[in-house]
């Protein structure tokens, strides 16, 4: 505890161990000798706490920084990255004690970017309607329903929608209003709070990938490159007729691998409209045929009744296993996953380059495949105009914030020769001797409560292998970390750089010197 000494060179990183979620405090030394503080994300899954409470984490940030952050960076708008911003204790908003000078965000968070705004609108509308549908589906029974509801609850949980929601049926179809109150979403509440805190637009920086590197304000010898979120959506924009970019965007068929749109051709309205148990049949505009053709198993002619008696669910003893009354709803889970991936892929991915040593720190947010795969699409440009390739930059990575709690498609597998960015691109040559990976995960909670392999064992193994044991994971104490294969001198140097981590339940401290 206590204020963090700004290091003489390089970056000190404090990784909080609050639970299943991200929160990192980076300290550097400014030109004038004063400390520079950068906080990346602040959130966790509800009830995923490890040893400390949320208020302890915020209290430590206040104490460490004297209540003032130079930069607050938010990778993406998922609960486990932002919900601590709106944490309250005894009616007091805890983050009120912290001042923020500047906000760093991905272009997708820019309220003034027309395209980003369209995506946001479509996203919020989709989440709204999906959660309304889920509420109405709770009463529905039958094959697959409990699993479907629990999956949808989890996925909506990421968007900050906490079941059961307070939606009244009449509100379900209300057009979207972009405000936390109608979203009923904790994520939106948190984001509203942060935006309110840094009200002046000049204090906000929205990063686009592959644009010219930016300096860290006031700190000499450190620059940041943005690698994501992918801007490919712009290309899609140019190819599409403008009409397709209306508020019905989420119904468009996915045209590319980046999945930065929502939904599938035309059908969502039809599903959501009818998803309620006993939806008002007369008003369902998606009924495909005239009434004269419709039958209930118990109605119709004598022959029809006999037919249905055998082939409809109730009478069909042998055929029950192939009834499909709920299958049409399973598309909702697919749709919810798509929303989730979209937000993960909207992650701001930043690489910090330390000028003197060339060392790189990579913060990947929760970027999944669609984000990773675009990192190397273009070369990078430093402020002075010199160019370098992404591969070259990533080869010097000595610190990797693992994507999405170490899930399987958020750290790409490959080889150093592979044409796409992957784990083997990181920490090449001399950098490998210092390579460290950090996994923000409460693996025990994830496994036990959610049955999520976070991190995936194979990915953790690959990371431990590559880093020779130098892998921080939120729920594993520093004392439990072990050297794996590498030389003792390397390990001892690592332990020395991790000073202060021993015995800490609240955080790990790690120093990347620029030398």
């Amino acid at each position: 505890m206590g204020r963090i000494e700004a290091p003489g060179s390089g970056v000190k990183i404090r990784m909080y161990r609050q639970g299943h979620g991200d929160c990192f405090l980076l300290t550097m030394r400014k030109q004038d000798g004063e400390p520079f503080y950068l906080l990346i994300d602040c959130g966790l899954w509800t009830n995923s706490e490890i040893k400390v409470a949320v208020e302890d984490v915020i209290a430590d940030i206040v104490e460490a920084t004297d209540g003032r952050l130079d930069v607050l960076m938010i990778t993406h708008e998922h609960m486990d990255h932002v919900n601590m911003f709106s944490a309250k204790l005894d009616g007091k908003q805890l983050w009120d004690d912290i001042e923020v000078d500047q906000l760093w965000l991905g272009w997708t968070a820019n309220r003034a970017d027309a395209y980003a705004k369209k995506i946001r609108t479509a996203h919020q509308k989709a989440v709204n309607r999906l959660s309304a549908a889920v509420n109405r589906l709770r009463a529905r029974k039958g094959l697959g329903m409990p699993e479907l509801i629990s999956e949808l609850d989890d996925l909506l949980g990421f968007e900050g929608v906490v079941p059961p929601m307070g939606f009244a049926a009449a509100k379900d179809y209300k057009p979207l209003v972009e405000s936390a109150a109608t979203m009923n979403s904790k994520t939106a509440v948190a984001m509203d709070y942060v935006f309110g805190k840094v009200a002046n637009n000049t204090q906000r920086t929205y990063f686009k990938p592959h644009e010219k590197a930016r300096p860290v304000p006031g700190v000499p010898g450190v620059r940041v490159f943005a690698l994501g979120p992918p801007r490919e959506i712009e290309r899609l924009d140019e190819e599409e007729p403008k009409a397709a970019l209306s508020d019905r965007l989420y119904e468009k068929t996915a045209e590319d691998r980046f999945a930065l749109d929502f939904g599938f051709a035309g059908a969502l309205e039809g599903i959501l409209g009818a998803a309620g148990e006993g939806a008002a049949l007369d008003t369902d505009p998606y009924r495909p045929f005239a009434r004269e053709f419709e039958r209930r198993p118990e109605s119709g002619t004598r022959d029809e009744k006999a037919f249905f008696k055998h082939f409809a669910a109730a009478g069909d003893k042998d055929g029950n296993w192939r009834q499909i009354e709920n299958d049409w709803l399973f598309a909702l889970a697919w749709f919810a996953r798509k929303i989730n991936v979209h937000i993960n892929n909207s992650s701001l991915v930043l690489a910090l380059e330390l000028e003197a040593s060339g060392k790189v720190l990579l913060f990947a947010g929760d970027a999944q495949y669609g984000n990773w795969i675009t990192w190397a699409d273009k070369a990078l440009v430093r402020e002075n105009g010199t160019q370098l390739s992404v591969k070259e930059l990533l080869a010097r990575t000595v610190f990797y914030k693992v994507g999405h709690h170490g899930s399987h498609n958020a750290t790409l597998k490959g080889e150093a020769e592979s044409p796409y960015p992957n784990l083997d691109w990181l920490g090449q040559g001399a950098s490998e001797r210092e390579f460290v990976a950090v996994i923000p995960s409460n693996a025990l909670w994830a496994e036990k409560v959610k049955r999520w392999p976070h991190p995936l064992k194979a990915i953790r193994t690959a990371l431990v292998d590559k880093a020779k044991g130098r892998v921080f994971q939120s729920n594993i104490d520093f004392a439990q970390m072990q050297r794996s294969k590498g030389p003792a001198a390397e390990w001892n140097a690592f332990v020395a750089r991790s000073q202060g981590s021993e015995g800490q339940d609240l955080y790990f401290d790690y120093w990347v010197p620029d030398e």
Partner: protein
Amino acid sequence: MPGSRKPAYRKLRVYAVDPSIAAAHDTAELNELILSIPWEDNPAGIPGLDPGRMVGPVGTYLEIVDHDPASNCFYAPVDLNETYVLANSGLTPSELNPQFHQQMVYAVAMKTIDHFERALGRVALWASRWQGGEKVFVDRLRIYPHALREANAYYNPAKICILFGYFPAPEGSVEVAAGTTVFTCLSHDVIAHEVTHALLDGLHERFSEPTNVDVLAFHEGFSDIVALFQHFANPQVLRDQIAKTRGDLERQNMLGQLAQQFGRATKRGRALRDALGYTDKAGQWHRFRPNSSYLESVSEPHDRGAVLVAAVFEAFLKMYKSRVVDLLRIASQGTGVLPAGELHPDLVYRLADEAAKSARHILEMCIRALDYCPPVDVTFGDYLRALITSDYDLYPEDEHNYRTAVLQAFSQYGVRPRDLRNLSLEGLLLSRSISAEGGADTLGKVSLEWDNETDRREAFGAIGPNAELIHTWLRSEKALLGHLGIVVNPKAPASVTRSKGSGEPAFEVHSVRTALRRGSKTNLVPDLVIEITQRRRGFYDLEDQKKADEGARIKGRRKDECDFWFRRGCTLMVNQKARLVRWIARTPGDICDDAEMAKVRAFLLGSTIDELDAFSGPIAPHKLMNQFAAVHRH
């Protein structure tokens, strides 16, 4: 009705392509088709059905059940034996009448089944159902024409049924007015595609386990091939296009444009767009030159499947061209230059007939090859070998150079078997000819009556006992097993599934069926097709794998739990009388081969099919319940 007076075929009207083609002015001629399908009535013994009628339709292969749960209703079933329906070759094509939808789904699906049975020379079976640890016979594929409200249709292997969706045409849609309801069950193409998935699953249940980049792509590509050539087998649908291209050989590529048009209702349309050709700004259609390196760059099942379609399509064009070159010479009086103006209708008819014949030929060729594929982990290269070998069995002399056409087309698209030294027809034949003399006793006992007249339930019932006989025979043939890559050495890794009695690595005889081959006097002779597989527990984590291989418990895992199943196997073609294993199609390596297992592991961990699932980890093939639903959703 006296059986003798029952007609052999039932004529049923369907949309030739789909309702939007019928509604477009320039393609109005392609409005409807009349399909002839084998006559059948409601089977006896089903409560609620009367064998004198054809309600549902429910026949021996299919049961159409029109449940629309999203609309909370059923639609009244059609009776195809009703007088007015019979008198008119079925109901008139209509989007507004669900009973016509039932009729069309039934008719097109039956046609696909018919093509399969003709090509394979035996009745087709659906996948069986696991019930109480046993495989149970499933009579009929169930079809739900209006089950979903999305632009999707899929085969569900767990329920052995096909679900079709309907959806409002999205805004900005050109072919169909926005908001109009589009029914996937009215697309000839979608129906044939989905039924092919079901038939393929009935033949090769492991072809839906993605263990390499080709497996799902094969399922998709093959289903597209059947859908496409089932279409092309109708000369009516080709005449118009052939008249337009005026028989110009260089412009016969235009048939590719037609193929794309047919496919545009499905995701295939888009995939084919990337593989076959494109329309330029002036509206002219161009075909892509085959690119042998394209295959390396695509991994999405539809995109990759489209390459397979493109290769087969290329072979089809080569065949067609060689069949019509004489006709064009005659028509141009030897000059090769056709007179100006429209082609003579007779010539158009003859050309269309040749194209349809070529289509039927290649369709049969493609279906027959299924029997010659390894039972698991199939690749496009395996399929190429199967195509060449199966055709060799039926036509020992390649009089029309069809096999050369296939070989050349596939190599133009970069498809080649993984272990091949020399890309030649001879080199592509499967490895062959091992004596099975030791099996004299047991092989003789295998009794296999399985042709197009056999009762399907009986054919299914015979599989078990025959497999047992074959198993007994093979167990005693250690040398042959070695040759097949089947491991019975007790020292094999503990993760390999053992047989309960002996504790030796178990092998399973999956399937015993018949395949026709042309005998020395041009008569057709049935051979035995035998599929054998082995399996081993696979783990993503190498430490876990090591423990499992050594027989140690893995912490936190149940005894039989694993991340994925690693399978190896082979397919044998056996001449029962001559006691000869004629062909062997096997997977590379064997069940102990760690390098092959590593390939499967690497594929599963690196696969991007399941990007949407960041929570449950990579989806192991045997855990993927409904891969078809996911692959088809877009």
